[in-house]
């Protein structure tokens, strides 16, 4: 008899809970509570990451002799944003975008020069990157809090669920930026420096070089019996230079070139290995547009083949200290470039563009 009572009670409970779960908003409310509690914990984690990055920036700036680094960071964060040009009318959009990017860069450089008037160029360049990283982390935190508070305000459990599912990737990205602070503070090359490193492996450090445009060098040497003009950003401070503008200038000065070979780091797919090398056709560069279009235009105007050699890596690898696998990848990429050069006519020069951040690479 006792067994029947148990069964009846449990069955009633099951039917009742089935009704509550299927015909009320209670499950969604529970989900909203669960997701929000999960996101809250991750927001605390993001805040700690931001604070850690700030501490690293303060330490670096103090070591360089800055008296109030906290204020310098606060004055930079939230400012120096860039509003994209109008795309509804695309005429001259690249020209306008280029102008805005250059003006922003100038403002950032002027700000850093203002607080470090006598510091070496590479210290100022590394400080710029540190300011930018703290800014990015503050922005990530603000965006996450914005969507979290919107979800709570309107009890939008779908928004909350989407945010909760994205949180592991967001936290990982923030951690990557925080780790990148160490690389820029110590001045070690980052994965994105694969392009400039390939240029240095192709031509030695003793070949003649000159600054062709701001923060961008052209090196001249011989590879496989061909005259090579190689472009890279000026190091060892953190800089990507202006490779598109430099390419136009170098090609116009040279008159006729047999080929343009671009070499850069490329984002790998999850199934690919860090340091894998691939080659193809086109401009291997990940800028917002102006530099890439300049490369394509120069190649098209002059009727010169434009080759791309890429070294695969994750986003994390690209902005943190260069991994050993990437150095091996660079050596492989150099062999690929030599193979391309061997097939070109020997009487005309070849232009090689090593795209990427040259921090830690002279």
């Amino acid at each position: 008899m006792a067994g029947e009572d148990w069964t009846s009670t449990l069955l009633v409970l099951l039917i009742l809970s089935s009704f509550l779960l299927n015909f009320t908003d209670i499950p969604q409310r529970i989900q909203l509570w669960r997701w929000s509690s999960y996101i809250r914990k991750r927001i605390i984690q993001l805040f700690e990451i931001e604070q850690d990055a700030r501490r690293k920036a303060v330490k670096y700036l103090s070591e360089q002799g800055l008296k109030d680094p906290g204020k310098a960071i606060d004055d930079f964060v939230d400012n120096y944003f860039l509003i994209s040009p109008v795309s509804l009318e695309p005429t001259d959009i690249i020209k306008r975008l280029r102008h805005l990017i250059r003006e922003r860069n100038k403002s950032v450089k002027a700000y850093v020069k203002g607080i470090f008037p006598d510091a070496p160029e590479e210290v100022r360049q590394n400080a710029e990157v540190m300011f930018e990283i703290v800014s990015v982390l503050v922005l990530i935190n603000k965006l996450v809090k914005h969507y979290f508070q919107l979800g709570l305000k309107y009890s939008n459990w779908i928004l909350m669920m989407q945010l909760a599912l994205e949180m592991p990737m967001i936290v990982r990205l923030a951690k990557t930026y925080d780790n990148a602070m160490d690389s820029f503070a110590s001045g070690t090359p980052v994965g994105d420096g694969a392009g400039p490193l390939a240029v240095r492996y192709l031509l030695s450090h003793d070949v003649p070089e000159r600054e062709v445009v701001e923060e961008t060098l052209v090196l001249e040497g011989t590879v496989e019996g061909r005259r090579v003009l190689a472009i890279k950003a000026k190091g060892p401070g953190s800089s990507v230079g202006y490779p598109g503008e430099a390419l136009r200038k170098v090609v116009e000065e040279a008159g006729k070139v047999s080929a343009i070979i671009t070499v850069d780091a490329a984002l790998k797919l999850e199934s690919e290995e860090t340091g894998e090398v691939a080659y193809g056709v086109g401009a291997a560069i990940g800028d917002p547009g102006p530099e890439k279009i300049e490369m394509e235009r120069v190649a098209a105007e002059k009727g010169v083949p434009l080759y791309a050699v890429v070294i695969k890596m994750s986003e994390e690898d690209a902005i943190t200290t260069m991994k050993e696998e990437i150095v091996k990848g660079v050596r492989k990429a150099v062999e690929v470039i030599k193979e391309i050069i061997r097939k070109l006519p020997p009487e005309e020069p070849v232009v090689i563009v090593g795209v990427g951040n040259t921090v830690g690479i002279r």
Partner: protein
Amino acid sequence: MVQLLNEIDTYTIILLLMLAAMLTLLIFSMLPRKAEQQEKPSIKTLIRCVDGHEVERDFSKGDYVGKKVECPQCGKEATIIAIYSKQALQPRKP
């Protein structure tokens, strides 16, 4: 005890088992996951001597690719040709 067991029928046992399974799943889903094994990278500097041999040493502040240094093996002129991180597995805490 035997009398009580005799009184419980099959349906009750199935329901109790189902409840136990649900509770176990709930508890397991709430338990914190084990943290992934952390890898601590060490940063190395690769130096090429004028003699052609290459030497790897620990990175020291101020190193950059292209810097002229003294070869740690023979003392001749050398150049830093690479700086990279090497992944080393951290020993697990007991």
